[in-house]
């Protein structure tokens, strides 16, 4: 059974249909990407899966559990962690404390949490900045921090929301390396992205959303050549 199964997900905002009967699956230890032009419904799908929005109809199954109606903190405790497009941080905490907050999802003892946090920081390459105030980090480091905090919750599936936004090519390569490292560590990745340079090299499969509908799915190169996809991206101008 797939790790994440989304079936016929539909979400409306007033008269606007943001998601229209969307279905897809993510297998264990896959890296699956979701792309689509602006306004396609990517973030809506993201928020529905992670519990921040309630879908109007459809099913979401994760690791055998029915996820519909779960609150955001519950989806996290079940093993789904997410990052935010507009990078969020606990500005009054230091880096190590932010990640510890994440690690405390799996333990009640701050000592164990701190240990896990330190390990995670080393994993993402932020260990040298562990005592820096989160509010004073650069954008790249803040994204790394977001990844670290999410990773510290020990997820089976990590969902990334446009992690490449605002990064230069060198930084994108760093992120790609990190993502591969995360997958190799056993975590499945579902990446919503707008920047092709990140998605294409790293994703095993890519799905394309347009006007709330899934219009293509397959390996990166196939999807990039798909006519409907090309039209969606060009046509929207």
């Amino acid at each position, binding site marked *: 059974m797939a790790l994440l199964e989304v079936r016929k997900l539909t979400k409306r905002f007033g008269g606007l249909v943001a998601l229209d009967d969307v279905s897809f699956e993510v297998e264990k230890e896959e890296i699956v990407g979701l792309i689509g032009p602006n306004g396609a419904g990517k973030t809506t799908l993201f928020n529905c899966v*992670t519990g*921040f929005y309630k879908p109007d109809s459809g099913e979401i199954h994760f690791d055998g559990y029915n996820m519909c109606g779960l*609150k*955001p*903190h*519950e989806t*996290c*405790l079940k093993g789904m*962690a*997410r990052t*935010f497009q507009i990078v*969020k*941080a*606990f*500005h*009054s*905490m230091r880096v190590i*404390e932010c990640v*510890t*907050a*994440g690690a*405390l*999802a799996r333990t*009640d*003892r*701050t000592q164990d*949490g701190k240990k896990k946090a330190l390990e995670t920081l080393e994993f993402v390459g932020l260990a040298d900045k562990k005592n820096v105030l989160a509010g004073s980090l650069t954008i790249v480091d803040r994204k790394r921090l977001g990844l670290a*905090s*999410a990773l*510290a*919750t020990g997820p089976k599936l990590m969902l990334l929301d446009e992690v490449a936004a605002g990064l230069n090519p060198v930084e994108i390569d760093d992120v790609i390396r990190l993502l591969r490292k995360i997958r190799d560590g056993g975590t499945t990745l579902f990446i919503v992205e707008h920047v092709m340079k990140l998605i294409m090299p790293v994703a095993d499969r890519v799905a394309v959303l347009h006007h709330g509908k899934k219009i293509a799915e397959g390996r990166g190169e196939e999807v990039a050549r798909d006519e409907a996809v090309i039209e969606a991206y060009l046509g929207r101008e």
Partner: protein
Amino acid sequence: MVAFQMSQRRLLLIILIAAALLLPALVTPFILHVAIMVGLFAYLGSAWNLGCGYTGKLSWGHSAFMGLGAYVSTALYMFYAVTPWIGAIAGMIIAAAFGALVGVICFRLGLKGHYFVIATIALAEILRVAFINWSVVGGAWGLLMPVVPDSMYHFQFHSSRLGYYYIIFAMLVAILYVERRIIKSKLGYYFIAIKDDEEMAESLGINAFKYKVIAAAISAALTAFGGTFYAQYVLYISPDTVMAVGVSTEILMGAVVGGMATLGGPVVGAAIIHPIMELSRAYVGGRGLDYVVAGLLTVGVAVLRPHGVIGWVEKAFDALASYLPRVARS
């Protein structure tokens, strides 16, 4: 090799604590009274800070919890001869329940910002009016406790007030210790996470609703114990003296002036505001100047240093400590 070493700061702290313990022997009864008041509001401010400063949910209705604590212990004492110590525990439990109720109402309704603040005032006011209309506990007249000879059981020490001083000192030390332990624990991390970014906190598996209610309940219970102390010290309570909005303001003023979300903030704030208020009150003979000064102080701090004066106080503390010798013994 140095077997024992103490930093200058720790030494200064010990000196200050020793001075505090010896204070009653060195000062007039009036100053002792001021010290007790400072201690009480430092305690209450810390209780408020625990629930509100760290979570960012700033209640302006804490007088309700203080009043509940005062009334429960006083009523049990006057009607059933239960020692106020046990009455205090009962008060804490009831206040915690009320605090949790306030939390559930406000947070279920998703109240934020000033809506939350005004709602806490509303709930406290409703409680106050309810007590005004409850003749069993004296209605608007309140309850007056008879003075008895010094006694632990009766929680009264009016001959010299020494008992009050050491008890409030112990209470303050205790609450600061509890506060420190909570901040370093999972609870503390979660409170601050919720304050900084509730959405992000949720994404890390933090049930914000649950923890906000927990914070409210803990803060309410601790505040209630302060209410019992107040009742035993002043021996008179009424809805307008322990449940009014003005009392809530006095409770949080120290924390705001000193610095919210810090351990020493409420203590420093209370230590600045209350002596000035008590001294103003004594020299002018009655209400008036004390609140003018408190008001000016508050405006000044809010405009010049919204994070509270604790930063300055810490610097002064360090500067003072640097004059002390380092203690080391091998």
